[in-house]
């Protein structure tokens, strides 16, 4: 593939970055927009990545920061509109029952505050340790664990029957 370790590393991370993006963004098109923006930002900021440090954390941090910037500028009206959309676009998954359940996951996640959503995604979906997730977000571990706990409780309350 790429002779360049940096580019090869990002290429290898793409599926995981897309998974993270699809949890952060509210529909698949926005998710790929976010992912593309993160890749472009990474290529431009290449000098800032220090060899020997973790490329995955660096990439997740870039994506997360882009998403936060975007989320801050999002209006309340857009948010409501996107939430309705989010429930409607998971039909392709398969069985009717599964689709209903999964769209519930999307809706429940969409209702979480952004800081809880990213904590839940990094730990429960991306499989990061608390310390790693806190490092990506740039917050103390205690903050991460309390956001994670609140996010997890809110999701369990919403998805009680499904979970």
């Amino acid at each position: 593939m790429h002779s360049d370790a940096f580019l090869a590393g990002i290429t290898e991370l793409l599926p995981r970055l897309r998974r993270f993006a699809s949890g952060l963004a509210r529909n698949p098109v926005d998710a790929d927009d976010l992912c593309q923006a993160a890749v472009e930002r990474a290529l431009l900021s290449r000098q800032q990545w220090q060899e020997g440090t973790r490329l995955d954390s660096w990439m997740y941090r870039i994506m997360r920061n882009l998403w936060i910037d975007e989320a801050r500028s999002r209006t309340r009206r857009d948010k409501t509109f996107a939430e309705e959309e989010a429930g409607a676009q998971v039909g392709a998954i398969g069985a009717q029952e599964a689709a209903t359940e999964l769209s519930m996951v999307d809706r429940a996640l969409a209702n979480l505050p952004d800081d809880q959503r990213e904590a839940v995604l990094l730990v429960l979906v991306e499989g990061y340790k608390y310390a790693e997730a806190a490092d990506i977000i740039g917050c103390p571990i205690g903050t991460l664990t309390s956001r994670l706990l609140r996010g997890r409780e809110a999701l369990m309350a919403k998805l009680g029957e499904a979970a």
Partner: protein
Amino acid sequence: MTISAELLAAYVDGELSELDTARVRKAIAEDPALAEQAAQMEALRKLLSARFDPVLSQPLPERLTAPLADAAKVVDLGAVREERRRWFERPALRYAAVPALAACLVAVLVIGRSPDKAMPGYAGEQLAAALDTTLSGQTAPDGTRLLISFRTADGAACRAYSAQSGGGIACHDDNGWKLRMAGSASGPQGTEYQQAGSGDAAIMAAAQDLASGPALDQAAEQSAIGQGWKPAPR
């Protein structure tokens, strides 16, 4: 022992020490309500994975892979240059053969050149001399550092260079070295073998766009120097 929700979550997430893990495990075994809570946390993780893990096996859209593939092309040109630079840094060549060879070539080419024939849009005499005789990876006496040589689709020989006053790309034609791109200065010229500056990266990217085929290797460059950078036969 009372198990807080936070401690239970840390247990489910595998964040506890062996000792604490054993404690929570014991508490769960003795308390069905706690066991139920832990099971719900596990179930949530599974539910989230079922929703998001399928994304991992989806084909990647071209708009995500293309920027990386494009960047790799530019870098590959840089890698050729780097390889050549290393070759020339071998002590024997660096201190003996190269300067001697360069001196011969300068002598031959400077004698052959009529002075002050620089035209607007063409390299001046000093830059032209550097472009004529300096191998890529080397720095000419005037401080111009040659980055890479390549040919365009119509066979013209072009060279990308970096200089304190601003780098660029020049292509050889009947009138001399026509300037195709003038970039920004590449930064302080502290050492002979400096890292490529950000200006260099833009020049290399432009070279990638202009080039047809791979960068000239060291032998091809020697031959082009010997033949005055004539266009390739079509």
